[in-house]
């Protein structure tokens, strides 16, 4: 008998690594972003997308060619791109008569679309138009969301979640205090989100905490919310699941005193002294009479127990 069909495995180590890299992980890497141009684009929307790309730089990739993709009609080409480049976030710039200066932002879950939102760009001033010193690249920005719409409106709260996902960068444990340089501010008014980007300047104040002054560095744009395609509650909840393995278990009964010694508290159940097997000796052996007495006592005790039980049952019933 010959082997009929082998399960195909990667032949090289490089291919193996590439496959492992794309597999789901317990602790995920930073989400990569793909920036596309649509079939037709305007200078404004492309510039805006490039500005956003500059803000996200090491974790984003800009595609050079134009793509005839309409995500709200057919998402499949984008899903294919996201699988290929291992990038769960995407942006698409397009421009037409019905929807001028159009930017679509979206994200994937399990290589299929989770949610996306479409913005029209108005009142745009680019990153280069502000002639001020810029921030250093790859810095984690502070995100500020203003406006009650972000809390009350379901669509806006989802968009807020998407924007945080888009701009938050890496999750870090420690942060350099002087490195807090950049603020992205989103303000929701009517159906617009006003995007502003500032540089933080730390000034002296009357106490230890510095006083903050802001200087606009761009890009500045008013994003008009157009179409959205949001994930269902179920899917979103499933996507937000936290792995059990990462939850820290509470350590019980262990304490450390001031000198650094660890103490453990141990709980032991009551010992049954009567039935413990001790050393066997002839002298300790029970005589026949003692055994008989013991049996009798046991019998009586058992009966007593049953009576007690009965009584307790009556009292409860």
């Amino acid at each position: 008998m010959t082997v009929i069909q082998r399960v195909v495995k990667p032949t090289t180590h490089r291919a193996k690594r590439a496959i492992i890299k794309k597999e789901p992980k317990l602790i995920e890497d930073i989400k990569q972003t793909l920036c596309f141009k649509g079939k037709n684009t305007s200078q404004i929307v492309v510039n805006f997308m490039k500005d956003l790309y500059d803000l996200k730089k090491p974790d984003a990739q800009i595609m050079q060619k134009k793509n005839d993709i309409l995500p709200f009609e057919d998402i499949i080409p984008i899903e294919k791109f996201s699988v290929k480049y291992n990038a769960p976030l995407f942006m698409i710039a397009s421009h037409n008569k019905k929807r001028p200066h159009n930017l679509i932002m979206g994200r994937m879950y399990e290589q299929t679309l989770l949610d996306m939102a479409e913005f029209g760009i108005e009142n745009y001033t680019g990153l280069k138009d502000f002639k001020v010193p810029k921030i250093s690249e790859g810095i984690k920005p502070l995100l500020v969301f203003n406006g009650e719409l972000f809390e009350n409106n379901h669509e806006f709260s989802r968009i807020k979640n998407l924007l945080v996902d888009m701009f938050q960068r890496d999750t870090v444990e420690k942060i350099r205090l002087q490195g807090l340089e950049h603020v992205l501010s989103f303000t929701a008014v009517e159906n617009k989100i006003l995007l502003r980007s500032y540089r933080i300047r730390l000034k002296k104040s009357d106490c230890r905490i510095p006083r903050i002054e802001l200087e606009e560095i761009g890009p500045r744009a008013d994003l008009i919310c157009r179409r959205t395609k949001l994930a269902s509650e179920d899917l979103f909840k499933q996507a937000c699941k936290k792995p059990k393995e990462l939850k820290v278990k509470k350590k019980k009964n262990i304490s450390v005193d001031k000198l650094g010694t660890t103490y453990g508290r141990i709980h032991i159940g009551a010992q049954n002294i009567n039935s413990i097997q001790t050393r066997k000796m002839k002298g300790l052996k029970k005589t026949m009479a003692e055994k008989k007495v013991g049996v009798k006592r046991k019998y009586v005790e058992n009966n007593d127990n049953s009576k007690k039980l009965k009584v307790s049952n009556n009292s409860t019933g």
Partner: protein
Amino acid sequence: MDVVNSILQNDIQKKDTHKSTVVNKDTEIETDLGTLLALDYNALDLKALKSQPEEYLRSLTRDNVQILINKIWELPVERVDEVTVAKLPKQEFILPRARQIPKAKLLTKWQQFAKEKGIKTKRKSKSKVKWDEELQKWIPTFGYKRNKAIEQKEWLVELNNEGKAAENPFADAKAAKEERKSKNELQRLRNIAKAKNIKIPKVGLPTKEHFADSQQLSQAMTIARTSTASLGKFQDRLPKEKDAKGIAKQVPGMKRKAEEVPRNLQEEKKRNTNLADNILKSNTKILREDFSVPKTKPAKAEKSKKKGKKAAKAKGIKKPKAGKGERNMRRKVGGRKRR
């Protein structure tokens, strides 16, 4: 004194607002220090937003950032390479994952067994080469150059059984190895199928489940035989083939055997009691109350006469006769069709 102090402090702050770090808000803003996020759900001042949008937005953001910075500066601080770093708490703002949580790999059948029995394999990293005493050199345990080494080692094999002298021991060994290989592959595939929850056919001797019931078989055979246009009239029977029982309803042309008339009173009584018992015992209930009951017509005197004639006629096909003054279109009349 405290009250006085606080009032004094407030006064000082009012004097130089450009130096203070205190921000007053209607309702406290939500912050998540893990994400460096500030969520200000207070209502916006629309008038200011219309008249001086940029100024207003900057001041609003400045206040919120100030609150965030105040909180960050209160975090525990460390010094790393002459730089002060603040230790951020865990991220609280919930964001969806990019991929689902990876599932633990399922154990193979052997691994599961070993775990149950507490069998532990010692080897952690098996070396690729092994010292061979016979050849006095290192030979690989698998893979490249392994076969060559084995050939060198076993160039001569002893034949010790008289009867099978003609057989080729090398070919035997090769066949045995091939067998082991395919067994291992089968087990590997079975483990994969188990992990992916795919049903595969069982191996080994066939069990009762593999065969249909003998009654089922005979029923299928009878139905198949009678499934021709002529209801199986011209189909040959197999030797000793009999019609299956209990399917007269489903098969056209098959007659149900009428129950025999009870021979004596005792038997009749027994049957009726059995029937009653059966009905009482069964769980089925009559739900419909509008079931049809055959209507009985009062028999006519004339008809009874006819019946007698009919009964006589049923014996065989007779020469057709006229209607005798009564035309009945429904009555079947045998014989050749006349025109």
